[in-house]
């Protein structure tokens, strides 16, 4: 099948994770639920930054099953983390190039820069960017590695109301143009309504209803 298939069961810190869901290509699958329901942990497991028992499959290729565990640098995920999202000792442009240089087929950066509207930010150091600028640069950086899967962890949470509304409008127009699976973690119903094509609800480490 085309897209991401996840089935994980194991303990993470204090709670048990036991979930299964799919995220098809060309769709935005929102992972929603209250704080502490395990949303971020699921993203980290999908990226290979964390390991619990189970299977993670992308386009029929096993990233994790009983026998193998593909390390994160061989998974080619575009991951927008909460908080800091750029290598602090490199300019925005150098961050994009860092990702592109390590992609299986380095993409043309110009369309990514244009789509995310960060041309003016390219020479800037990460610590000089505003919250909204940093999030758009983070998205460009995630796309610059020619990912097979995009993971967005609360991409709007650190922004003030105005920047949030602007980036939400922009994401609502931009995400549907992508042909890869997008997994969006959020706890904001407005973001779900505007961005998600499918919803997976988590409650205490399990898929709810």
């Amino acid at each position, binding site marked *: 099948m085309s897209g991401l298939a996840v089935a994980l069961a194991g303990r993470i810190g204090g709670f048990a994770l036991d979930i299964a869901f799919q995220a098809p290509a060309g769709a935005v699958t929102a992972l929603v639920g209250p704080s502490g329901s395990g949303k971020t942990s699921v993203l980290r497991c999908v*990226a*290979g*930054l964390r390991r619990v028992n189970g299977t993670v499959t992308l386009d029929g290729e096993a990233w994790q099953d009983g026998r193998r565990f593909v*390390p*994160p*640098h*061989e*998974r*080619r*995920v*575009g*991951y927008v*983390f909460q*908080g*800091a*999202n*750029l*290598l*602090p*000792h490199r300019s925005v442009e150098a961050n994009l190039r*860092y*990702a592109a240089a*390590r*992609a299986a087929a380095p993409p043309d950066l110009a369309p990514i820069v244009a789509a995310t509207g960060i041309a003016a930010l390219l020479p800037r150091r*990460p*610590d000089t960017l505003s919250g909204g600028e940093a999030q758009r640069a983070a998205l460009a*950086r*995630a796309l610059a*590695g020619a990912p097979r899967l995009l993971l967005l962890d609360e991409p709007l949470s650190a922004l003030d109301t105005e920047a949030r509304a602007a980036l939400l409008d922009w994401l609502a127009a931009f995400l549907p143009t992508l042909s890869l699976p997008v997994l969006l973690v959020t706890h904001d119903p407005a973001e779900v309504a505007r961005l998600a094509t499918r919803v997976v609800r988590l409650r205490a480490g399990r898929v709810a209803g």
Partner: protein
Amino acid sequence: MEPSPLGPVIAVTLELALTTTVLLLLLATPLAWWLARGRGWGKEIVGALAALPLVLPPTVIGFYVLVALGPASPLMAPLHMFGVRTLAFTFTGLVIGSLFYSLPFAVQPLRTAFEGLGERPLELAATMGAGPFDRFLTVAAPLARRGFLSAAILVFAHTVGEFGVVLMIGGAMPGRTEVLSTRIYALVESLQFGAAHRIAAGLVGFAFLALLALLLVERRIGRLAP
């Protein structure tokens, strides 16, 4: 007795400090990385062992290295077939002793720097396709540059200031294993206080400049750091 010229003594001192600094940065980096980021309590035992030279008398380190490098040492047996019977009283022996003596001065700043990196930059690099060694070279090392500079300055200065270890292992042989600190001792023994004073004052000046450089480097890089 008229002492031999000072030039070769300075040369041996600087060569020893430089060799020790380069080798120790290479050796201490993986050790400090493991101490900073490894798991389990076993690393604390290794951490304590690596810090031992801070509190041991230099004569203890010098004595054991001297025994280990002597002709009767099992560690030297493999070298006998190459015609090397002992490394005691050689420059190589001095370097080996200095590596132990200055080890904590390389490990500590590096360990602190690696601990201060946090997970995020390395996780970012991993999701961008960088493997472990790539991540170390392109992310961890540049972000820990302050630790590398501090370690280099401290090891160099500390090795120049070495006395007990180099006397035990090197025997202060002019032109081969005699360094500035052991020359001062020889001069004082023969009551040449004026000559001793010139070298001693020079070392005070050098030590001051090294520490000043250390503080300036840390301030400057600290300001530029994220």
